[in-house]
């Protein structure tokens, strides 16, 4: 049995509770050695018995029904070992070891009763699992008359053991005897109900875990439904328009990526280790990314922004820069006749540079038609008003690159402008 999982008690091929078998499976040794070890330990003040009981209590029964054929010889050996263990205990008790005398005496009877009840609890658990697997009904009823008889018999044994133990101490005073009786009864009831307490605790933990998993699944399902499924439906409807399909797919990809890898992204641990992805923070980086996304969506092409440097909060100047950059992207999308635009943003402590580049038609900068206000007004004039610079390079047939540079006037005050577009036109320094 080389597989070494968590320690679990065996369900099949067990003699008492499957503890020894489980330990053997876990350690990868023969079960005979484990049983022998328990017997030897039992001789030492009954440590083996106590250890066995504790393992029985706290180690879960394996949940899968694995068939184990137990050879006759092994069964006989095991029974022999149990008897041997009892024998050793008896001999030790006869030799005057008081603790063992206790165990073998009345408390031994009580322990036997508890063992019967616990074993029955294991059986009930097994039946419950089996029933759950068959019909989905949990908490199936117990195993009928025999189970009841076994439980009652076990309880009687425990009661009897306690009673004999108490009678053995009858020479105590009234008060002490009453106290002892109460404690013994409480202990007896506690021991008898151990399996149910444990099951209650485990079920609670299990249920909590399932609820968390369920909530997680619901969140993912909701997100996929709202985004991916809707987009796929749209794509099917528009399947004859490749441009539109590409636009939808690209938009969905961006959205999903943001969800997965964005700042509060699903796939990002809460620790947020590592240097943050350079984009998508509140501020300049985010608004530029957003502008690129809008252009992408509107003109059905790919705009891939690359951002370098520490993000800054927007102020009036940087806002103008974003708007100018957006206009440059729009120009490229409209006039260059390409399906991809490169955008590179470099944020330095004292200056921000934006490059918008396409490999499209290009044009002669001195020969721009007079009706193209975009370049003159939206880019050049806007940048000039805010103290920025524009450099335009275009070669017919090779493409265009717009370089926007904005000096940061007050690096110490990265305050965010809360204005609207009006502010943009208000002050004109030149």
């Amino acid at each position, binding site marked *: 049995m080389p597989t070494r999982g968590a320690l679990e008690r065996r369900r099949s091929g067990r003699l008492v509770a499957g503890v020894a078998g489980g330990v053997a499976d876990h350690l990868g040794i023969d079960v005979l050695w484990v049983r022998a070890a328990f017997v030897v330990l039992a001789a030492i003040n009954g440590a083996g018995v106590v250890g066995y009981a504790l393992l029985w209590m706290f180690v879960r029964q394996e949940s899968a029904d694995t068939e184990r054929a137990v050879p006759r010889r092994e069964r006989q050996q095991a029974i022999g070992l149990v008897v041997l263990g009892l024998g050793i205990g008896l001999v030790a008790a006869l030799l005057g070891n008081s603790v063992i005398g206790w165990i073998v005496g009345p408390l031994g009877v009580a322990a036997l009763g508890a063992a019967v009840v616990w074993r029955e609890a294991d059986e009930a658990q097994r039946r419950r699992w089996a029933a759950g697997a068959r019909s989905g009904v949990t908490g199936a009823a117990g195993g009928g008359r025999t189970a009841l008889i076994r439980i009652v018999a076990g309880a009687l044994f425990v009661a009897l053991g306690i009673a004999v133990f108490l009678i053995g101490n009858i020479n105590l005073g009234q008060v002490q005897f009453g106290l002892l009786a109460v404690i013994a009864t409480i202990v007896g009831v506690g021991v008898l109900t151990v399996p149910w307490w444990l099951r209650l605790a485990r079920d609670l933990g299990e249920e909590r875990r399932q609820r968390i998993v369920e909530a997680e699944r619901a969140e993912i399902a909701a997100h996929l439904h709202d985004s991916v499924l809707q987009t796929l439906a749209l794509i099917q409807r528009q399947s004859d328009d490749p441009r539109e399909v590409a636009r939808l797919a690209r938009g969905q990809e961006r959205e999903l990526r943001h969800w997965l890898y964005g700042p509060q992204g699903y796939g990002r641990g809460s620790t947020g280790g590592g*240097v*943050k992805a350079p984009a998508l923070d509140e501020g300049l980086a985010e608004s530029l990314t957003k502008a690129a996304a809008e252009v992408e969506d509107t003109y059905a092409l790919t705009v891939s922004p690359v951002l*370098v440097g520490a993000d800054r909060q927007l102020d009036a100047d940087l806002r103008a820069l974003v708007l100018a950059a957006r206009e440059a992207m729009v120009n490229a999308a409209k006039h260059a006749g390409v399906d991809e635009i490169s955008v590179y943003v470099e944020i330095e402590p004292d200056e921000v540079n934006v490059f918008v580049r396409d490999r499209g038609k290009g044009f002669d900068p001195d020969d721009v038609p007079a009706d193209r206000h975009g370049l003159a007004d939206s880019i050049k004039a806007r940048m000039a008003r805010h103290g920025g610079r524009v450099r335009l390079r275009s070669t017919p047939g090779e493409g265009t690159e717009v370089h926007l540079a904005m000096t940061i006037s007050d690096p110490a005050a990265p305050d965010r402008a809360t204005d609207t577009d009006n502010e943009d036109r208000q002050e004109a320094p030149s």
Partner: protein
Amino acid sequence: MTDEQPDTDSTGGEAQKPITVFLVDDHGLFRAGVRAELDRGVPDVEVVGEAGSVDEAVAAIRHHTPDVVLLDVHMPDGGGAEVLRRVRPEAPSVVFLALSVSDAAEDVIAVIRAGARGYVTKTISGRDLADAVRRVHGGDAVFSPRLAGFVLDVFSDRPGAAPPGDPELDLLTRRERDVLRLLARGYAYKEIAGELFISVKTVETHVSSVLRKTQLSNRYELSRWASDRRLV
């Protein structure tokens, strides 16, 4: 760097022997797509096999020893970095090119530091992918604009960054920075050469040198990325 096949090296686009490529990606659909694209229009690149998991990939790469491995960054059981870690010591002649949909900087840097010679996104066209394969096979590095941006970011001297320990490895030269910046702006090698008045070969040298620094530098950000991924 793959010196045992001088006939297919750098200049030889029309060499007789095609470049053998191995695909590693846990998405079968994506593998099929790449295979179709490379088989269709690219005669000098031949897909010799594919794998969908780390273990499978390690075994198959050992067996085939392809020229180039296209490696997905994100896979169960450790992803591309794990494949690199297990295969590279035994097969130093195999060159790795990382492919990913994730643009998370730390993932990309992690595979580069584990030994990949380049990184491209999965949305790359078949023609560009074949180019990238040829280039890494010829010993060059392949930097997409995004990777160039990440590397610039890592090596930037922003306030608060730890001082470089080994200037030779921890700082980029002025020229390397220029080249990276143009790469991030979407320029091709030839265009960069024209812009900076240097030869394409020199551009390639600069990019390879940046790759080496990215892999070997101990800069704070890099080692943190790496240790987050338990690479070091």
